Each structure stands twice: as C-alpha cells, then as structure tokens.
C-alpha cells in the first residue's frame, strides 16, 4: 500500500480541459520513501503536489492517500494523513512561533474543542524536533529564513502525518540550512514527496525521482537511473557531466557553463 498515489491525473486551472497543466500524471510514494519531483519551471511540479492535498481537483484520474481516494473522504480527512510545507508564509498578524505550529493540530479538532494536554505536548515535541523550542514565544516574523522554514516543518510534524509533502523546502536557505533541513526530514523517516530545484540535493537525498516536463512524467527511477547527461539535455536544456560523487557514490552533476561555441 502506497502512502500517496496519483493515478493518471489530468488537471487544468479552469474546468475546460483544453490547456492541461498536468497530463496523465502517475506517481507513487511508498512507506518510508523520500521521493523527489524535478523538472524545469512551469513543468507542473507544484501543481501535482497541489493535487495531493485537495487544493487542485483533478479533471480525470484519482488521488489516493493510504489507499483511500481523498475526494471520497470528508474535507479534512486528508489533513490527518498528509502534511504540507509550501512556499507560503503566514500573514503578518503578529503570530508567535508556537501559534504557527499550533495550527498543525487543526485537522484533529472539532468546533469548540480546546487544546488538550496531548496537543500541547505534540506541539512542544515538534518544536523540539526542529530545534525551535527555545524560540516558541518569539514572533514568527522575527525568525530568519531558515528558522521560518523549520517552523513550518514543525507545524507539519504537529499534524502527525504519515506523508510529508514539501514544495521547494530548500528555497531561500543557505547551504548549511539546506543540508540540515533535508537531513532532518530523512531522519524523521516519514514518507516524503518533495519538489526540488537543486539536482545534486535531489541525487543525494532522494530514493526515487520523477521528472516532469510540460505536465507529463518523462522519466522515473533511482537518481542513478534518471539523472543522465542525456536527460539533463533533453528536459532541462543544459549540458552537464554526470559522474559518481567521490564519497557517497550517488550521481554528481557538473554543469558545463561555457557556451557551446567556445568548446573545442
């Protein structure tokens, strides 16, 4: 049973199925896997993630979490299984870090239900896991970019999900924080699907990769199978050398930055 599966999903922003952004997209995340979705800008990476948490409703195809079609379940059901970290920061209404992480308990609560001791403990634990417990009462706005990203991850963890959905989790982070965040996610061992721009990070951290191009999955498999010089040329339009990382052994991509004319 896979944690998440998209089965031949078509999607377009308007109901008219003329300009499909996603065409017959199928992907699966198995328990404990870290799956990367890569592709050029506008290829449909974020749109496919948005199908996984009911933000986009597919025109065709099915989206399942834990083998249940999410559109056959109540509106908040998916949020008890999948948690999402997006490129979206809370509005500046003066929320504290803890108030942001508290939001993660929302799908587990009904109207008028207060925070139980268990909720408080879960939120504290999530803050602890991302190393922000000591800053829980600071205004969210005053955090650095890396801390904000970690706070949003803590909110996702407070949902106690069986699947993490991450949209460009390393965006805006410096090198050290990029590595720390991805290591943290790997350490958690929760099934994860993430869109990633940095192909070397994708190669280092992902168990499997899906490659999107103009709304279609054009390749999938282990990083070694997917990340070839040929694919980089075809899909991303860049020339690159691909060899093995000297220490870890996963594919290493070296972009050829000179223009073609100057090459011998």
């Amino acid at each position, binding site marked *: 049973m896979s944690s998440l599966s998209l089965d031949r999903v078509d999607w377009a922003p*308007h*109901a008219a199925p003329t300009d499909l952004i996603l065409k017959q997209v199928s992907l699966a995340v198995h328990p404990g896997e870290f799956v990367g979705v890569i592709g050029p800008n506008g290829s449909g990476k974020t749109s496919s993630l*948005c199908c996984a*948490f*009911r*933000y986009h409703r597919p025109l065709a195809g099915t989206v399942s979490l834990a083998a249940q079609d999410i559109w056959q379940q109540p*509106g*908040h*059901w*998916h*949020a*008890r299984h*999948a*948690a*999402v970290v*997006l490129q*979206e*920061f*809370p*509005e500046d*209404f*003066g*929320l*504290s870090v*803890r*108030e*942001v992480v*508290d*939001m*993660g308990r*929302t*799908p587990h*609560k009904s*109207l*008028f*239900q*207060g925070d139980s*001791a268990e909720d*408080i*403990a879960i939120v*504290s*634990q999530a*803050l*602890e896991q991302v190393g922000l*417990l*000591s800053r*829980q*009462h*600071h*205004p969210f706005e005053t955090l650095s970019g890396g801390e904000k990203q970690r706070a949003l991850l803590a*909110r996702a963890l407070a*949902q106690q999900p069986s699947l993490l*959905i991450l949209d460009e989790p390393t965006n805006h982070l410096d090198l050290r924080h990029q590595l720390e965040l991805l290591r943290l996610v790997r350490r958690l061992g929760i099934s994860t699907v993430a869109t990633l721009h940095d192909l070397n990070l994708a190669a280092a951290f992902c168990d499997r990769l899906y490659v999107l191009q103009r709304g279609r999955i054009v390749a999938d498999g282990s990083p070694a199978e997917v990340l070839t010089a040929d694919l980089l040329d075809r899909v991303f339009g860049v020339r690159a050398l691909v060899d093995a990382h000297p220490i870890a052994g996963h594919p290493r991509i070296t972009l050829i930055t000179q223009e073609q004319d100057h090459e011998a």
Partner: protein
Amino acid sequence: MSASRSAILPADAARSRRDAFPLIIATLLAALLVSILIAVGLGPVPVSLANSWGILLHHLGLAHADSANLGWSPGQDVIVWQLRFPRVLLGGLVGAGLALVGASLQAVTLNKLADPHLLGVSSGATFGAIAVIVFTGNVVGSLTLPLAAFAGALASMAIVMTVALRQRRLNADRLLLAGVAVSFFVMAMANLMLYLGDHRSASSVVFWMLGGLGLARWNLLPIPALVLLIGFVVLVGLGRSLNALMAGEQTATALGIRVSALRLTVFVIASLMTGVMVAISGSIGFVGLMIPHIARQFVGTDHRRLLPASGLIGAIFLIWVDVAARSLIAPEDIPVGVGTAAIGGGFFIWLMRYR
C-alpha cells in the same frame, strides 16, 4: 510532557498572553459591568448614581422600595429605565458586534484594514434608510427605517457575493474589490436619490449616516442581542479555522479547511450582524477596524482569545463614546460615529507615530 516542562523560559509577552487570558477576560467583564453601571447615571439630565442604581434595582425587582418613599421623580425613572439603560445596553451590543465582525473579516480577507463597512453592507443599509427618509416616510411605524436599512444591507450583501464568487471559489482580493465596487455604486445611487429628493431631508439622512444610539428602547434590544449571541458562538467556534487561515490559503486547505466555505460562512454571518447593527444605529465607523488591533495587543492573534476580547473591548469603548456624545454639548446628541471616528483616528495616528 517533559519537553514543555523542561523549557523554562523567562516570562515574555506570548507566554503571559495564554496564561493571562482568563484574567484579562475577567477584568474586561468587570470593566464592562462597571461601565454600564456608571454610564446609566451620566447624561444631559442629572440623575445621581445612587438614584440611577435605585431605579435599576427597583425595575429589576431586586429592591422592594415603598413606592411612596422613592428618592427619585417619575421623570427620572422614565429617563433612566426607558431611555438610558436600553441605550447603554444597545451601545454595548453594537460595539461588541462591530468589533467581532471586524476581527473575523480581517481574518477571512487576510487584510488588516478590513472592517464591517467595507463589504457593501453599510452602503446598502444607507440606501434603504435614505429611501425611507426621502420618499416613503415611516409607512409601517417607527421600525420602518431599521427594516428598510436591513433589507438594503441584505440586498447589497447578495450582490457582493454574486460578484465575488467565481467557480465556487471565494478569493479574498475579489471579495474586497467586489465590496468596494458595490459600495461605491450603491452609495452613488443613494446620493442621487438624496440629491433629487426633498433637500430638507438631507440633514436627517446625514445624521442617520453618522450613527447614533438614540433609537434604543427595550423592545428594540432582543434582536441585536440574539444576533450577537449567535454570531459570537459561531465565530468563536470557527476560531481555530480562522487561525489556520492566517497561514495562507493553500496551507489552510492542506490543514483541512474548506477555505471558500469558511469565507462564505463568516461573510454571511458578518453581513447579517452588521446589517442589524447598522439598521438600528447607523454606520458607526472605526470600531470594527480599530478594536481588533487593540485587542491583539493584549491577547495575541489566536481567534479563540481575540474574538471574546475584541467583543468586550468594543462594548466598553462604544458605551463610553456614547456617554461623551450625549454629555459633551448637552442637550445636543453628537452623532456617536463622529466620536468613534475622531477617537479612533487619533488613536491610530498616535499608534503609528509613537509605537
């Protein structure tokens, strides 16, 4: 849980907020009660506090005074019991309602400048009121004007919703733009009506638009009280969802919130509450915009705390502004909307300049 216990932090603003909430609410409730008790004694006709309270206790059946021995005149009795007390209570209801609506609308539109009059409700109510004042007169008795104003508010709300809804989604920006556009259009029609109508009616229209609690009578209170109670319960019940909406539209969806349905629910409740308040007291500005910002300073952004605190502060605020409105140049009744706007505007300028 050990993790939370082990983190012994210096008492700072956010921590004290959560712990201090019951104390803050108790303080505000006490302040509201004291405000009501003092405000009934204040006004153009001097009635001593002791006599005012005597009249209240007498009517509430809490004091059995010998009717020959009362320390107040029948005229004072009428002023305090028939006019002032309902007026103070209406001020509390309207102030609380507008502040609650403002705080909720600021959440669903993700806009700190949202207020109850932004979404077309007030202009619709004004249209209805002008139609009555200029053309029809009180054809169905003294409630003609509030009823027409409420009908105008509902019609305006329906138009705003029709314009804002697209593909069954309710987007915050579209909602605000539709509210502003419909407001301007409806106000233009209302002003045209005013211009073409009898010019002598203009002053009563202006007076109505500036807001006032002078209509308050006992028989008028049950409806706003009931609407406020229902609105309060529903909005506080939605508090956790409103919090999640602060995270942004996509994230809120990921947290299991049906964003458009939530917006629609809050918008309809807010419009009904505003419609009732405006119909009775005219468009009193600034309470809905300003009070939530003040309340956030005390209790933070969590709507389960913000909404009750906003309501109480709004009630206390409007009761006192109305005391000023009816006392400052007595026996003239300054429109209470002038007071709220002057104080509110001044407060905001001070806040921006010195905080």
